[in-house]
């Protein structure tokens, strides 16, 4: 069974936010106004967190893209009253059934990474964008929860293509939009259980760590960083 995961090399990340834009376009993530954004009601399946160290002029900026960790033991799954969010045994992905979500937001409250997003409004796009929505991904309705799906629709396409070609799915067939867009190739994606895959070898690197491993959620997004990465507390 494949177990899809991601490795993000923080030493390569330049904070350009290409992954954020690519994700928004790929997954029909709705736009939001500056007002909504300032109220904390925006949706961004992947978000680049900046962290600044030191005082001017000796400043060092670091960036950390944060997305759904697709935990092996996701805290969001058991709390859902309808099973709208689930962990797929076949792929290890944590998915969301939008039409079954009752909008209670329990999963978001239970997520320690705060990477679940709620549709506070009926989604809307500028007119030009409205006609160029991706047909592969459903548009989510108001009052439902959504989050990164690791571009699940691309897995379906890759599987179809592999079947059409009469071969098995191989490393590199299934890529996510953020991975594709990253100019510094900081993001790698693939099957963590396939020992030959790039992600599997990177995830075993001495530079690898995961966010809040002490919580026991076993995230499948690994970060690479030389030296210590203290999650900075801005408070």
């Amino acid at each position, binding site marked *: 069974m494949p177990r899809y995961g991601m490795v993000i090399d923080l030493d390569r990340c330049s904070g350009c936010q290409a992954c954020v834009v690519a994700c928004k376009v790929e997954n029909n993530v709705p736009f939001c106004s500056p007002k*909504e954004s*300032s*109220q*904390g*009601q*925006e949706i961004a399946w992947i978000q680049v*967190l900046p*962290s600044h160290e030191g005082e001017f002029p000796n400043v060092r900026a670091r960036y950390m893209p*944060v997305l759904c960790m697709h935990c092996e033991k996701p*805290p969001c799954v*058991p*709390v*859902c*009253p*309808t*099973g*709208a969010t689930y962990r797929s045994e076949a792929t290890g992905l944590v998915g969301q059934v939008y039409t*079954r*979500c*009752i*909008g*209670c*937001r*329990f999963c*978001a*409250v*239970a*997520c*320690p*990474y*705060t990477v679940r*997003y*709620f*549709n*506070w*409004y*009926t989604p809307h796009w500028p007119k030009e964008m409205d006609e160029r929505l991706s047909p592969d991904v459903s548009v989510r309705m*108001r*009052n*439902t929860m959504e989050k990164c799906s690791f571009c699940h629709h691309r897995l379906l396409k890759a599987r179809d293509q592999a079947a059409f070609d009469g071969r098995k799915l191989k490393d590199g067939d299934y890529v996510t939009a953020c991975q594709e867009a990253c100019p510094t190739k900081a993001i790698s994606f693939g099957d963590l259980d396939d020992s030959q895959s790039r992600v599997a070898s990177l995830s075993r690197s001495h530079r690898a760590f995961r*966010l*809040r491993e002490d*919580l*026991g959620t076993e995230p499948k997004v690994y970060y690479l960083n030389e030296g210590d990465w203290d*999650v*900075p*507390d*801005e*408070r």
Partner: protein
Amino acid sequence: MSPTNVESDAPRFDNVLRIDLRLLAAAVPLVVLVLIAVPLYLIQITRGVGLIAGLNRPTYWGLDVVNCVFFLGVGAGGVIISSLVHAFGIRQLKVVGRIAELMSISSAVMAMASLFANLCWPTRMIYIIKYPHPTSPIFWDMTNLSTYLMVSLVYGYLGTRADLVRVIQKKPRYAWLYRLLSLGYTNLSPEARSRDQRILRVLGAIVLVGEVAEQTISAWLFGLHKARPGWYGGMIAPLFLVLATISALAVLTTSIVVTRRLIRLRIDDDVIRKLGKFVFFLIPLLGYLLFVELFTVLYSAEPAKLNVYHAMMFGHYAPMFWGHLTLGLIFPFFLLMVVLLRVSRGMLWSVGIVLLHFLAIAAAWLHFPVPYPALWHGLPVWAVYAVLWLLGLALLSVCAYAKMGEDVRIGLATLLVGAGVFAARWNLIIPSMGEYSYLPFVFPGYTPTVGEILVIVGVYALGGLIYITCVTLLPLVESEEAEEVKEVEEAPVQTEEAEFDINAYIH
């Protein structure tokens, strides 16, 4: 029952179907408030919650969840009170048993309404049954809430139907209404009555256990999540139970005081004093539990929890915390002390001065940022504390010397305690979401919007309307005390154990 008997207990049905102008005057604004809330709620569910509510990431739950949990507590406490009356035969509370039931039914409706305001897809609620997921506390909360609404309806029905039949005899013009309400029941024989009492007794014992479970499950909506350090822990369930009991007693006392002022009700001062005493003894218990929780966090200084508590005590939510401590715990405690224990006013003054003095020192030591600093701008710190101190003294003097009825004083104290419990629930629930994240996100704080508050006010108004309707329609004080005394006299002498022998009820 002969008609003469009906006449003899006529004053007990005094409130039934009496259209009181003051009640009517109270109902009109309530209707208006409900009518304001309905369109706002409809916008929420058809256009998106964000248009009305100030909720955000990560404060996904706000006022409506706090309100829901508060009313679950009030309702649960109400059922506990009425089951104490029925299952354990606490006679002193018998006169308020039915009002407690009414309160718990309207609270259940209000909790349900708040929950619906929070869950934004009422049409999809069926999925909780269709695709049940028993690992979710919400599944159990819904199960519990619906069971508890049903049980309190059954409970209320069984306890009231004999009285309803009496009302049919007394008010033949409206017999159809009461025949409907009593579901066609007509049996007034003593056997039927004692059977009803037996059922109520067993049901009361079951309900008591059920309510403890209910509050525990409500607490587990929060306490089970390692993602939220302020919630996570075992303390929250017992805390919720105490909060539920004290809030139910407080709301019950307040509503009896208000109802008694509005309509004639055969509940005397003594009952109100008893209820006030219960609240009085529960305030230190609540304070103790909150202190233990607070002290553990402050002493161990674990950063995750400390952040939440810091925000709660000195940050965005500080007015709620200090407001609860002073107006919800300390002030009503003293007020009740004056009324119930008949403490001399001089004594109270001296105790109050010493206590306020220590509070001021503690505040100075903790560098307590005074709420609304703009108001105090330019004043030296000692002056601010002096002003606060004098304000506290003035409040104490008011509670010691103001001319008002004893029941009004108790009602005022319990109202403050009830509001304080709401603030306590807020403090337990809200800061944990927005004030600590495991990642360096920068989040806006949460402040309820006007729309959100109006929806909740509408929910309150709905509860008030249900209460007023019940007060107008139903006999509020059980009319069977006299009979019961007779029954006890006639019955062979029973020992205490025999009274609680469950086998006697099974056969």
